[in-house]
């Protein structure tokens, strides 16, 4: 299936439209919630700030932090997914499916079981380590064997590693039943309850990873043609793969650290991006970045309105939105190459 935007001008224009959409949804995210605040008030909160206004305070604290988190997690996961799909030549690759989520969660729960529930700032680094660990494990397992890294083996290795971490996590939670209740929301993904201050340390890493992947974009395009061709053309494929892997872990790890275990964004958004711009990774990464942020923000918006005052955990929301799409992709037989 061919992508719909054929020339640079079109790609650029649609990108602008998407970015404008993003801004609109950001404003909506700041305005909508348990207290419905008018758009005008949202603007006032930033440009005509009144310290005593509760609404302004709500906007500048809770709403801003969850919006930013959704943006970070959404774009980070989406780009990580796109990179993974290139790395494994597999249209079904995604951080969640490869166990990065469950690895992060496992390390967190394990830490909490031994040392007591960690504070948010430690959480973030733990999630990183967990994601890295899981990623390495999957890579290692899937590479065993004569035929090396086959796409299907990676997916199944990922599922096995996920199950492995998942059951250990469950085991720990069963032994320490009180702690179970404390991390349930974290386990299912959440954009609420995190201070912006804690998330900020992540930003430089994420920016670094995104920039790195943009720099690598050309090499990714070559890699997609086929590994033999790529080395034939002089590309140092191993180095590229390692750098790709690094970016993936940073992006996925940060997202999990910021927002818990959210599935399917990394899987689906790259495909939506491909629908627009095909497999030119330079454009694809940019589109995926924006669309990922957009989608997760929308999901977050819906998740916090439907059953007020409670919220549907965002990881659940994305799973429900994502599963039908995933099935569609499988049935359609999408390839990573055109």
């Amino acid at each position, binding site marked *: 299936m061919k992508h719909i935007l054929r020339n640079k001008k079109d790609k650029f224009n649609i990108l602008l439209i998407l970015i404008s959409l993003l801004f609109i949804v950001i404003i909506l995210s700041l305005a909508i*919630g*348990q*207290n419905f605040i008018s758009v005008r008030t949202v603007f006032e909160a930033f440009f005509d700030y009144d310290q005593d206004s*509760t609404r302004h*305070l*709500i906007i500048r*604290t*809770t*709403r801003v932090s*969850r919006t930013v988190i959704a943006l970070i997690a959404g774009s980070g996961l989406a780009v990580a997914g796109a990179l993974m799909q290139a790395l494994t030549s597999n249209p079904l690759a995604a951080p969640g499916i490869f166990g990065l989520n469950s690895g992060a969660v496992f390390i967190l729960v394990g830490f909490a079981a031994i040392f*007591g*529930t*960690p*504070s*948010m700032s430690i959480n973030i680094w733990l999630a990183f380590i967990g994601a890295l660990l899981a990623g390495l494990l999957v890579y290692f397992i899937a590479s065993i064997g004569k035929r090396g890294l086959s796409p299907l083996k990676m997916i199944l290795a990922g599922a096995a590693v996920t199950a492995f971490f998942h059951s250990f996590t469950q085991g720990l939670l069963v032994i320490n*039943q*009180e702690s179970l*209740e*404390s*991390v*349930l*929301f*974290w386990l299912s993904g*959440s954009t*609420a*309850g995190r*201070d912006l201050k804690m998330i900020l340390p992540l930003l430089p890493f994420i920016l670094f990873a995104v920039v790195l992947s943009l720099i690598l974009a050309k090499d990714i395009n070559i890699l997609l043609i086929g590994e033999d061709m790529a080395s034939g053309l002089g590309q140092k494929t191993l180095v590229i793969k390692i750098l790709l892997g690094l970016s993936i872990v940073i992006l996925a790890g940060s997202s999990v650290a910021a927002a818990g275990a959210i599935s399917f964004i990394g899987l689906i958004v790259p495909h939506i991006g491909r629908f627009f711009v095909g497999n030119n990774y330079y454009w694809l990464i940019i589109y995926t970045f924006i669309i990922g942020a957009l989608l997760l923000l929308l999901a977050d918006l819906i998740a*916090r309105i439907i059953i*007020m*005052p*409670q*919220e549907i955990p965002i990881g659940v929301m994305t799973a429900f939105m994502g599963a039908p799409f995933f099935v569609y992709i499988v049935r359609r037989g999408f390839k990573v190459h055109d």
Partner: protein
Amino acid sequence: MKDIKNYIVILSVFLVLAISFSNLVMAETRIVKHAMGETEINGTPKRIVTLYQGATDTAVAMGIKPVGIVESWVEKPVYKYLRDDLENVKQVGLETQPNLEEINKLNPDLIIASKMRHEDIYNLLSQIAPTVMEENVFRYRETVKLMGEALNKQSKAQRILKNWDQRVNDFNKKIKKKIQDDWPIKVSVLNFRADHARIYYSGYAGRILNELGFERPDKHKKDIWGVKLTSKESIPEMNSEAFFIFMSDNEAVNNTYKEWTSHPLWKNLDAVKNDQVFEVDQVAWNMAGGIKSAHIMLDQLYDHFELDE
């Protein structure tokens, strides 16, 4: 003739003795009705195993030291307020999954359990010892009654409940006198955790507060246990005239608590504005579920409202 008379007298004496003796024997075997049906219990059980926190608490209240208990939820393995009374009592595992072999090893003659938790092992438990089950884990009055029946200490149970009722009435009178027209007060029961906050609508603390005459905000009068809140925007949901807050004492929870209570929406709450925010003991208010812990909860209420007893 005289022989026959003698004979009749002896026979009647014998009959009377026999009947009263059999009554005695029959009275020794009671049938106790409970959530899972009926159980026959012989005499006065001495070796009891309690499989939920409320039952352990009530056993101590009735002056009995169980031979086996389950682990507590916090302050493991035994809550601090019960430690003195439960020294050297054997642990039989988790409340949710007590170890059947351990229970059997103790050779109990009565097991007190909860249908909510142990329904599926009722048959196995009954084979170890006569087993009675309370419907839930937080119904403190029913637990006292049930255990009174099962332990053949019905009058002790009645006295415990009467004592409780007396204190409740006393509290009621004194607080009405102190607060007068503003009574009854609307209160919220709140709980903070590492990653979310909760409002408890009903349950253990709710029942006791109801008994004492406290009211709940209209929003909290629903028939569910409560809600879990993840976003600070839901803070207004908590609103009422007074708050009773309990939580675990660790860094993550304290951080969350600090965050939520420094949010502007928090400062707008009535209880906060009137300085009626009370931190209370989570064991007594939520984790123990027995009659002794109910008294501790009541003590705290007396303290907070500065009433004398």
